[in-house]
């Protein structure tokens, strides 16, 4: 049973007004401001206490390193430290020596501490300070089993990111993707899962059957994907915790391109029979599929709007792959792309205001975004083959994979929806078809 515990925001320590320096915030819309210099020193402990994950002093160092890496990955911050910046003692966590941090060139400071609790958990205190104004902006505490210290670090980084950017948190998330190894004509493909910073990596399938397009359920506890078990392309559902998997539609019929509905009750997918591919919906536990499209074209890659009322998908009914939006019952099918290229694999943003897609033009695949009406198209990447977008739960970043010409080696990347350089997500082997989990509780 999953224990869901809400995170209550504590009141801010001070009102964000009446300061000479103005409110401290980072500009997420891009490229105007340089990244904010934020000091992330090692977190002290009141007393080093051994835990199954190392003593609390060591954990304070490790947590600061993860916080700094997380903040850097947002593209909005230049972390100072933890190595090479001044160390401080436990009482200074809530009352830092602001002048010292000003002299070090920091605009903001993440301080904190790690303390062992009698029940075997650790408390991670996490404080954000406006160094220029000399005041605390927010603080939050997290209690975790010592072995799950990374969760507390991600929650701390999310607290900082969210407070300074005004955006929803997204760092305490996981990624499921297809790990690829071996030559192009005999590639081993396995579903793998990891934290969004690449840690806690493990494989969920053995590789005996080729798998593609794993996607999270809205609660992150299940996956839906396509596997070639039985020498057929068919959709399966997996329980992440147990690894148990189940064929969605029984029988020898080709099913693919699956995604959960936003409420997790349904799975939308493509079924191909007799050379014709249409979009269907079925209960997440199976049942009789209901057909939503009925054109002679290939209708595929469906994705729900976050309110569950509409579906974006691709179809070549016009002669080339283009994006369409329809009501959740299949009514009112309407083409939205007229940009002179082909468009594929659309995904509706969790905020509802954008659709990410793969744009096919000039012999290349690029990741782009547009509004659900098709207006405001922007291309975010430029390479030979960028494919398979997946949104961060806060709608601010898109993960995708980039395939190298020739070798076909695939690599995971993430890019800000506001532009900027995509960053690599390192994986032990090649990586494709990423799916970003919802924010963890």
């Amino acid at each position, binding site marked *: 049973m999953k224990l869901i*515990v809400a*995170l209550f925001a*504590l009141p801010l320590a001070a009102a964000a007004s009446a300061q000479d320096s103005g409110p401290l915030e980072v500009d997420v819309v891009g490229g105007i401001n340089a990244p904010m210099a934020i000091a992330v020193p090692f977190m002290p402990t009141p007393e080093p206490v051994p835990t199954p994950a190392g003593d609390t002093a060591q954990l304070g160092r490790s947590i600061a390193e993860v916080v700094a890496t997380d903040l850097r990955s947002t593209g909005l911050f230049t972390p100072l430290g933890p190595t090479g910046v001044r160390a401080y003692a436990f*009482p200074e*966590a*809530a009352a830092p020596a602001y002048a010292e941090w000003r002299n070090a060139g920091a605009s903001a400071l993440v301080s904190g501490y790690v*303390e062992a609790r009698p029940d075997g*958990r650790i408390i*991670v*205190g996490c404080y954000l300070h406006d160094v220029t104004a000399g005041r605390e902006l927010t603080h939050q*505490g*997290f209690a975790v*089993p010592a072995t*799950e210290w990374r969760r*507390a670090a991600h*929650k701390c980084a999310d607290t900082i990111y969210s407070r300074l950017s005004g955006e929803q948190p997204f760092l305490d998330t996981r990624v499921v993707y297809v790990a690829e190894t071996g030559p*192009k*004509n005999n*590639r081993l*493909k396995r579903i793998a899962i990891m*934290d969004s910073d690449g840690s806690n990596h*493990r*494989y*969920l*399938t*053995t*590789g*005996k*059957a*080729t798998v*593609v397009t794993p996607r999270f359920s809205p609660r992150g506890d299940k996956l839906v994907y396509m596997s*070639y*078990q*039985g*020498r057929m*392309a068919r959709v399966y559902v997996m329980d992440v*915790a*147990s*690894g148990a*998997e189940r*064929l969605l539609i*029984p029988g020898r019929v*080709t099913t*693919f391109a699956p995604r959960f509905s936003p409420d997790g009750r349904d799975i939308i997918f*493509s079924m191909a029979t*007799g*050379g*014709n591919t249409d979009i269907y919906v079925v209960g997440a536990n199976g049942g009789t599929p209901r057909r939503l499209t009925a054109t002679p074209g*290939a209708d*595929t*890659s469906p994705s729900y709007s976050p309110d569950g009322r509409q579906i974006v998908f691709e179809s*070549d009914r016009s002669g080339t792959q283009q994006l369409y939006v329809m009501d959740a019952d299949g009514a009112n099918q309407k083409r939205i792309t007229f940009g002179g290229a082909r468009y*594929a*694999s659309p995904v509706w943003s969790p905020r509802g205001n954008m659709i990410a897609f*793969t744009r096919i033009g000039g*012999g290349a695949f690029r990741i782009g975004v547009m509004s659900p009406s098709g207006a405001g198209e922007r291309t975010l990447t430029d390479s030979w083959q960028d*494919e398979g977008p997946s949104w961060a739960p806060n709608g601010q970043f898109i993960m995708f994979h980039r395939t190298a010409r*020739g070798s076909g080696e695939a690599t995971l990347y993430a890019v800000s929806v506001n532009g900027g350089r995509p960053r690599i997500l390192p994986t032990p082997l090649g990586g494709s*078809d990423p799916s970003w989990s919802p924010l963890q*509780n």
Partner: protein
Amino acid sequence: MNKPILIGMTALALVIGGCAKKTPPVETAPPAATATDTGTAANGDVDLVELPAMQADLVAKAGSDTVYFGTDEYQLDPASQATLAAQARWMLANAKVRASIEGHCDERGTREYNIALGERRANAARDYLIAQGVPAARLLVVSWGKERPAAVGSNETAWAQNRRVVTVVVR
């Protein structure tokens, strides 16, 4: 002055990660339950078994087990039709086997679209074999999309070799 804040904070610290098994901390062997991805009993259907000697006989007698397609196309040209007609004669002469008609695409299509396109190609071949008298019950269809290229390059020659349907003899 600092101390009360720290104590207060400790009292308010929130409990996360309460489900200890949610994120196993280290890489582990795949759980036993996933060992079912061999494609057999779990889903009640039997895996197809390739028959290499019969496959070689099909290639020898029919000339080829493969037909090719134009970019983003699934029409059979006269050469492909002749190959499939010869494959149909072989199938009729070897009534105990089935065939998995397997559609493939080059790498220049997106993953899911290519699964749809591969299925179109496989069905075009299947329909032709049925028109030549092969019972439909002996023909299975699978689309590999761009998952199993025959040629590994990223050039016109390789792409042309990868836009194909392979007739795989199975039991």
